[in-house]
């Protein structure tokens, strides 16, 4: 999967780096810099799967050590579902590695407040991160003007569909709510589950759906106003979005029935999607990393997948809108004895466009560095669908057509509220209005405490 550079590509890439970012600093940073402080750098990673971990070891870890003689990088892969708890326990005990991941800026905020992360501003200048990384993403790692976390795993929510099934049935990806509902009715009538869905393996994954309905029904402007405290989450525009999501679940469109939505595990629902028992799947861009396991020969079927942007579900919502998400951040432990080495590796991992593009091509969506990519930046080996998604996201973001994922732009307790209490709406133990009222209360408390991550205005 990894394709070596041709001489022409090398010259083009080299020229871009030299022109775009200043000669000395960028060349140093791009090469790993040889600027690591030496000694050992320990890191915990949430990278999952043997292929991804193997790629990381071979193409990131070892080349970094080679480029930085005397620096030993010691990476421990931790289970993604457990890593935040492990980090929390380790930091609480005054331990933990030099480089620490979190599940997103909202979580990083808690560690920053507890003074557990090192300030990285001197490295912003040294490695020119302000020039290299997307400004909005870098701002999410800042607290009171100081940088503590580098965001990566840029992600968004998408509508995946079983392309083979759609072709056989003469269907097309829906472009608005009427088409979406018409399609769901038709598929349901034919015994095909409209959307493969389930939270049996990870109940917190239910948060994808409020995120989708708030972005594509309420719209990014309404969300911006709620997130910036101008309007409360208890407004009708937020409540109606939850009503709509609930009605889809009650109709059995997600996972086949409400009960199955609660109990379906990821492997089972993805297998149904690949086999054509379910036609669509609303999931984040990360699904691209594992889609090959459920489609084609490897999965024992002859089906193929594709994706489309989630359609607007109300007038006034942009046709092509992507909810922005940051799946992970990395920071340096405030107790690290090798902050220079840790920062050097963070730059090596995140800020080099060529290296990041190769990584993103080899392991789709597992990494996704927040760099300003263009179509030509990606190697030819990259899956066309992955490339299209990255470029579309970049173009739509440039036009200001972006929304907000709750795991990125909501503060931690509000995020947990969204994840846990929505189940009560689906079982009828709570009304959508009560749910949104509760969220408004939790959000307001955290807003007063200054825990809401920095938000960018849609269209900006």
């Amino acid at each position, binding site marked *: 999967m990894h394709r070596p550079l041709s001489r022409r590509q090398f010259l083009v890439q080299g020229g871009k780096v030299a022109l775009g970012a200043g000669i000395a600093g960028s060349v140093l940073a791009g090469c790993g810099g040889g600027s690591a402080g030496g000694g050992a750098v320990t890191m915990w990673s949430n990278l999952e799967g043997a292929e991804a971990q193997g790629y990381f070891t071979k193409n990131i870890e070892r080349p970094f050590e080679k480029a930085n003689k005397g620096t030993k990088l010691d990476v421990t892969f931790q289970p993604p579902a457990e890593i935040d708890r492990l980090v*929390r326990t380790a930091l609480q005990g005054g331990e933990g590695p030099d480089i620490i991941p979190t599940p997103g800026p909202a979580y990083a905020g808690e560690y920053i407040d*507890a003074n557990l992360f090192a300030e990285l501003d001197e490295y912003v200048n040294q490695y020119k991160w302000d020039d290299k990384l997307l400004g909005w993403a870098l701002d999410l790692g800042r607290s009171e003007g100081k940088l503590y976390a580098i965001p990566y795993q840029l992600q968004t929510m998408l509508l995946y569909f079983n392309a083979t099934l759609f072709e056989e049935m003469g269907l097309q990806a829906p472009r608005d709510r009427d088409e979406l509902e018409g399609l769901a009715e038709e598929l349901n009538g034919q015994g095909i589950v409209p959307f493969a869905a389930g939270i049996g393996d990870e109940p917190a994954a239910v948060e994808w759906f409020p995120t989708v309905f708030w972005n594509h029904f309420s719209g990014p402007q309404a969300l911006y106003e709620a997130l910036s405290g101008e309007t409360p989450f208890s407004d009708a525009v937020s409540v109606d979005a939850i009503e709509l999501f609930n009605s889809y679940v009650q109709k059995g469109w997600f996972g086949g029935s409400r*009960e199955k939505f609660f*109990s379906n595990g990821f492997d089972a629902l993805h297998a149904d999607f690949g086999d054509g028992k379910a036609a669509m799947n609303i999931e984040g861009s990360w699904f691209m990393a594992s889609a090959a396991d459920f489609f084609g020969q490897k999965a024992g079927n002859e089906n193929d997948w594709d994706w489309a942007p989630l359609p607007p579900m109300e007038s006034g919502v942009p046709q092509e809108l992507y909810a922005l998400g940051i799946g992970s951040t990395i920071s340096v432990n405030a107790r690290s004895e090798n902050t220079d080495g840790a920062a050097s590796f963070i730059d090596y991992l995140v800020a080099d466009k060529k290296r990041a593009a190769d990584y993103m091509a080899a392991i789709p969506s597992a990494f996704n560095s927040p760099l300003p990519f263009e179509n030509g930046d990606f190697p030819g080996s990259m899956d066309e669908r992955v490339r299209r998604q990255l470029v579309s996201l970049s173009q739509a973001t440039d036009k200001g057509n972006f929304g907000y994922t709750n795991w990125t732009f909501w503060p931690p307790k509000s995020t947990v509220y969204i994840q846990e209490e929505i*189940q009560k709406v689906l079982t009828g133990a709570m009304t959508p209005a009560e749910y949104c009222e509760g969220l408004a209360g939790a959000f307001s408390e955290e807003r007063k405490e200054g825990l809401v991550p920095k938000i960018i205005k849609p269209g900006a």
Partner: protein
Amino acid sequence: MEVNEQTVRSATRPGGGVKRSSGRALRRKRLLSAWLFMLPLLLVNVLVILGPSVATVYYSFTDWSGLGPAEWVGLQNYTDIFSDGDFWGALGHNLLWTVIFLTVPIGMGLGGAFLLSQITRFQMIFRVLYFIPYVMASVVNAALWQNILDPDRGVGSVLANFGIPWLDGVSFFGSERLALPAVAFVDNWHWWGFVVLLFLTALQSVDKELYEAARIDGANRWQQFVNVTIPGIRATLVFVVLITIIGSLLVFDYIYIITQGGPAGASEVVGTLMYKEAFGRFEAGYAAALGLGMSFISGIIVLVFIYLRRRGWEI
């Protein structure tokens, strides 16, 4: 040994002051040796039990998030427990769990042990078979039953292929009504074999002549069971009841693995709620108060047993 006896004898004689003091020195030496032997274990206990326990008591009076400094909030966490609907719902599930485990596995264990005690051939095979689920990791057991009870691929759909459709499509772990009993079923599957072995061991110590006497008196199997077996294994029965009650109050693993307390809290117990409070909602102080509350309830149950034993109950 000889010296010791001589020392003791001397110490009891009048005018044996020197010898008496050397006896005390010896006792002190023995005491010191004993403490030295116990010291490593004591240190481990202080480090891993007493230390965290004291810290938990302290944090239960604070608003600690699990990170950074903690602010003293007095009894706030404890008063919050009383108005926390999630807690009372979870405690109710603990009580229901207790009722299930005081009846189903104990009933099955007694019945299984009684039946096993009646056979001699293949008894060991059955004992091993019953015991296997107990030694399997809870994650493995849970995954096994998640597959067996899968609404689309599990036993329900297999039975439907044979013309028995009533379990087809039933989502045991996704239904608010079925989730808690379904997880209890899985936990019971792993637990009851252990109970059988405990009761079987106890049954083997019951005097066979008592059964013979009962038969001569005209007792049938059921009367033998009630009037000979149960009194004969009372100590084991009480022990099983005690660990069942405490285990039910502290239950966590199967529920966390299979449903994580869902759907919508339908299988939430205090253990899973506590975990969520500490690691999900970042309310470690409140979680500490919940933990101490449950320890308090467990402590009362143990004290009741001790009290009854002191009052002469043969338990």
